[in-house]
């Protein structure tokens, strides 16, 4: 069964859960999906546990009765026993974030360039791309996504009112890191050269990046 199919099946099962069981189960889903485990095996386990929970639910049992009172410790034990992400997929995952960010950066760059051309603007100036900007986009996207994933994993089992507090705290951290990245980028831009990339070149880079992302990060391999 493909991962997409499993997720669809999983969503269908969640619809059949009682509100309190669903809340308990959703936290487990977040924890396991944000852990560095083999994705297919993680989804398989989630599906298996959803079905178990539904079976137990029909016998009048609650999620606490089935999986215990400490879901975080329980999930940690599950993750410990799940196969880890293979070296390549871990690398693929890390590479995927900056790759996609840069691909869409070039799309935006091409778009702005063409619009400028149509409007008879200064295309030459629009064709300039600072190397520091590219580093900024790649590193910035990577750090932010990693951070979000990590925080979601840690916060999965916090009670509702704490989640709101944590959201505010996390927001502060994102903004702080974003500022640090931008400042670092401005500082770096003084030392790094500027490339001239014309809009059609950006478009070609985007197309290569887009096709590359389908080939490199396809789930169905």
């Amino acid at each position, binding site marked *: *069964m493909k991962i997409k199919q499993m997720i669809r099946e999983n969503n269908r099962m969640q619809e059949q859960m009682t509100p309190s069981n669903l809340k308990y189960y959703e936290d487990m889903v977040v924890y396991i999906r944000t852990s560095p485990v083999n994705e297919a095996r993680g989804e398989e386990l989630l599906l298996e546990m959803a079905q178990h929970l539904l079976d*137990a639910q029909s016998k009048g049992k609650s999620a606490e009765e089935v999986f215990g009172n400490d879901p975080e410790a329980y999930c940690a034990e599950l993750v410990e026993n799940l196969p880890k992400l293979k070296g390549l997929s871990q690398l693929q995952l890390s590479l995927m974030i900056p790759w996609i960010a840069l691909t869409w950066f070039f799309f935006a760059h091409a778009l702005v360039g063409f619009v400028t051309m149509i409007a008879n603007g200064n295309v030459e100036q629009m064709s300039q791309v600072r190397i520091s900007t590219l580093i900024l986009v790649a590193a910035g996207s990577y750090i932010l996504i990693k951070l979000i994933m990590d925080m979601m994993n840690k916060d999965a089992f916090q009670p509702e009112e704490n989640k709101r507090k944590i959201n505010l705290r996390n927001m502060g951290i994102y903004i702080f890191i974003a500022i640090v990245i931008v400042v670092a980028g401005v500082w770096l831009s003084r030392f790094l050269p500027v490339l001239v990339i014309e809009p059609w070149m950006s478009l070609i880079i985007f197309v290569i990046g887009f096709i590359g992302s389908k080939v490199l990060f396809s789930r169905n391999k």
Partner: protein
Amino acid sequence: MTTQSQMLKGILEGCILSLMENREVYGYELSTLLEESGLTFVSEGSIYPLLLRMQKEALIEGTLRSNTGSGGPPRKYYNLTKKGKDTLTQFKQHWGTLKHSVDHILDNERSKR
């Protein structure tokens, strides 16, 4: 881990292997079978970390599939690998010896009273 819980885990693993010896079993079914046998110290959810570990050690293997007959939801069905079968044979031998020795001691003590 305490010696007692380690011992129980070993026994539980042996029981799971035995329940899978002749047919495939899915998670919920397994927990029901264990409960029916009176192994009530096992909480339902605790079978999953154990099943994962047993798969990692290649004692069992699982396949996810829908029940083709009833068109029911997909379940993961487990059965024994060659290594699992060997481990079960070993477990049966160890258990036999252990049971015999413990019974022997208990009976002797009882007859002295």
